């Protein structure tokens, strides 16, 4: 059983490693982060692979280790959450608890990805071995096991990774540029009063260097999702992380705020480090839609009334 265990663990670990990306979130794109998550990924892949193999050998207690693994992985979510929450106080524009929760979930889910790749490999291997008695007899047990196991594991890897990627703001809404205006001291974007800027020079800087956008949801469900405060904070954080901000701790007037109009349109005004409208809009569009903010009210019985349907 040494060979399938080795290959399954390897496949699962690779699946986990490929999901560790270096990106603007700067997390966990540090060596320590890589080591932590690769180590846990290898462990998950090993446990996933070992489960079915142990069962095949008639060792039922070994399979219960899968349950232990699952509770281990739940702790990953806690660890991620605590780290990000501790860092929150050092952020000029915080991620917000909604975003942190989303990131923590992704880390947990990606460990299950490693486990699933290992699990499906060993299941496939066992199935291949069984097939060697029949249609795949020409290959022998070992080769037919690998022939079934490896593709199955790769399919699980690709499908799961694609499935867990999730939608972006661009999938829910149209993002268009908007002018910044002042109604007295009120910073106004597309008719929405965003904040009261009393300090004259700050107003001038907004007019000269500021950028603003409207985020127009395409459906009622998108409206409800984007209204979520965690989702809005995630947009503000990501945009400032990507295009840079001029503001400092003693200049709260330049904190990016997202406000909502009665029709569900969100508006955002910022003072970017680099004034590039296209980069600004692209930054908003790529913000991930947080799992915890997704609402689909129209799919409920009440929502069907809103769509104009009437039950008999």
């Amino acid at each position, binding site marked *: 059983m040494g060979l399938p265990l080795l290959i399954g663990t390897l496949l699962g670990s690779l699946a986990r490693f490929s999901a560790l990306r270096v990106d603007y979130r700067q997390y966990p794109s540090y060596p320590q982060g890589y080591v932590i998550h690769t180590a846990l990924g290898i462990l998950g892949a090993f446990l996933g692979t070992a489960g079915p193999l142990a069962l095949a050998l008639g060792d039922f207690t070994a399979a219960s280790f899968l349950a232990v693994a699952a509770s281990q992985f739940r702790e990953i979510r806690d660890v991620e959450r605590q780290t990000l929450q501790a860092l929150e106080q050092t952020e000029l524009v915080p991620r917000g608890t909604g975003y942190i929760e989303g990131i923590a979930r992704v880390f947990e889910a990606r460990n299950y990805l490693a486990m699933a790749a290992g699990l499906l490999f060993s299941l496939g291997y066992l199935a291949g071995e069984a097939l060697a008695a029949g249609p795949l007899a020409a290959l022998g047990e070992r080769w037919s096991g690998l022939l079934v196991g490896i593709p199955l594991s790769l399919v699980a890897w690709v499908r799961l990774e694609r499935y867990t990627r999730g939608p972006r703001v661009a999938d829910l809404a149209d993002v268009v540029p908007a002018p910044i205006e002042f109604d007295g*001291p009120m910073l106004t974007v597309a008719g929405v009063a965003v904040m009261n800027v009393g*300090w004259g020079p*700050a107003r001038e800087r907004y007019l000269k260097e500021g950028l603003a956008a409207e985020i127009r949801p395409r459906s009622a469900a998108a409206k409800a999702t984007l209204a979520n405060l965690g989702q809005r904070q995630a947009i503000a954080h990501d945009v400032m992380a990507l295009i840079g901000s001029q503001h400092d701790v003693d200049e709260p007037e330049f904190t990016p705020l997202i406000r909502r109009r009665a029709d569900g349109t969100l508006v955002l005004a910022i003072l970017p480090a680099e004034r590039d409208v296209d980069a600004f809009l692209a930054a908003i569009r790529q913000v991930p839609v947080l799992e915890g903010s997704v609402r689909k009210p129209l799919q409920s019985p009440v929502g069907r009334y809103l769509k104009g349907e009437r039950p008999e």
Partner: protein
Amino acid sequence: MNRSQNGVDIVAVITTNPDRAQGGGATVLIARDRADMEQIAFRTAKLVKGMVHELAEDLWIVAVH
């Protein structure tokens, strides 16, 4: 100060017209003219890491969010 409403503290009221501000939670600072008001508001805001808000032409507040 420290009348926390939703995490917002009104730290100071700056006005050129003393009739418009009565004693209350926040310090009332009387400015001589508009330039003086701007200076006081800006310096107070920097000091407390707060923000200047204009309630009326001659009545400003500094709030910490």
